[in-house]
């Protein structure tokens, strides 16, 4: 019981430290299927690059996909923070990048990011 309470406190502390609720990867997968698969796949490059292993990878660096110059030279890694900024408004975050698709709702973004984190 005591251990459970401590674990819960640690989780809650983490959540409040981030200031964001945790994403739901299952709902995130549903959103991914609905919104992202027009251009993306997990395993293959299509109009957009594949997403397998995206979390923690440096942006614009897959050797078999032709990124925009803007993203290729962006110099950041895909983290929760950068993915959220990207999904919120990619053309503001990285001007002249190719992706114009945005995800306006924060809950949707966090769920999609939670799913992307599982692709490893």
């Amino acid at each position, binding site marked *: 019981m005591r251990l459970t309470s401590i674990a819960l406190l640690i989780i809650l502390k983490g959540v409040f430290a981030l200031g964001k609720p945790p994403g739901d990867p299952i709902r995130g997968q549903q959103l991914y299927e*609905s*919104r*992202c*698969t*027009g*251009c993306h*796949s997990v395993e*293959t*490059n*299509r*109009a*957009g690059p594949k997403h397998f292993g995206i979390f923690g990878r440096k942006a614009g660096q897959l050797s078999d996909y032709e990124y*925009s110059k803007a993203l290729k030279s962006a110099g950041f890694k895909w983290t929760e923070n950068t993915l959220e900024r990207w999904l919120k408004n*990619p*053309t503001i975050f990285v*001007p*002249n*990048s*190719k*992706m*114009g*698709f*945005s*995800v306006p709702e924060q809950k949707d973004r966090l769920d999609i990011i939670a799913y992307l984190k599982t692709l490893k």
Partner: protein
Amino acid sequence: MERRHFLQAGGLTLSAATIALLGGKEALASKLKANEKGDVAILNIALALENEAIAAYQLGAESKLLNADILKTAVLFQSHHKEHSDALAATIKKLGGTPVVAKTLAEYAKDLNAATLKNQEDILILAAKHEKGAANAYLGVIPSFTDKEIAKVGARIAADEVMHWTILATVLKQELPAHSLFFGA
């Protein structure tokens, strides 16, 4: 299909719409601003998506798995995607950009995992999935276009993709969406 044929169709096709959109706006190309470069980049992603759709229908048509009526419809839908592709490429060039080059059919077959398609239903399910994905992709990028006329063309293309999805879903006997605002959700 030649672009002039679209023009002869009475302005109902997207190529004609886009040419009309850009007709007389030569200044647009010469005054390519940073935000218009963004439009070109997004249009090129849309073009890549259309090129993939053309290839997907080609793979379906060559599979010999489609019955005559479905094949005829698939070829018609492919022709719509070719018109979208022509319209997008023309717009990209007009804006001073370079249209993305399509991959080979073999590359698309690999990307789409075409080897796993064993019957007509498999092909229709894949087509329906991609048409829905394409509609959602257009709906998602429309707010990012700085040029409202380009955004409008994007909306018209999205409507075509929805038309394709609706027909494919009907043939597949899929249930109609239970709620409104089904696309873009």
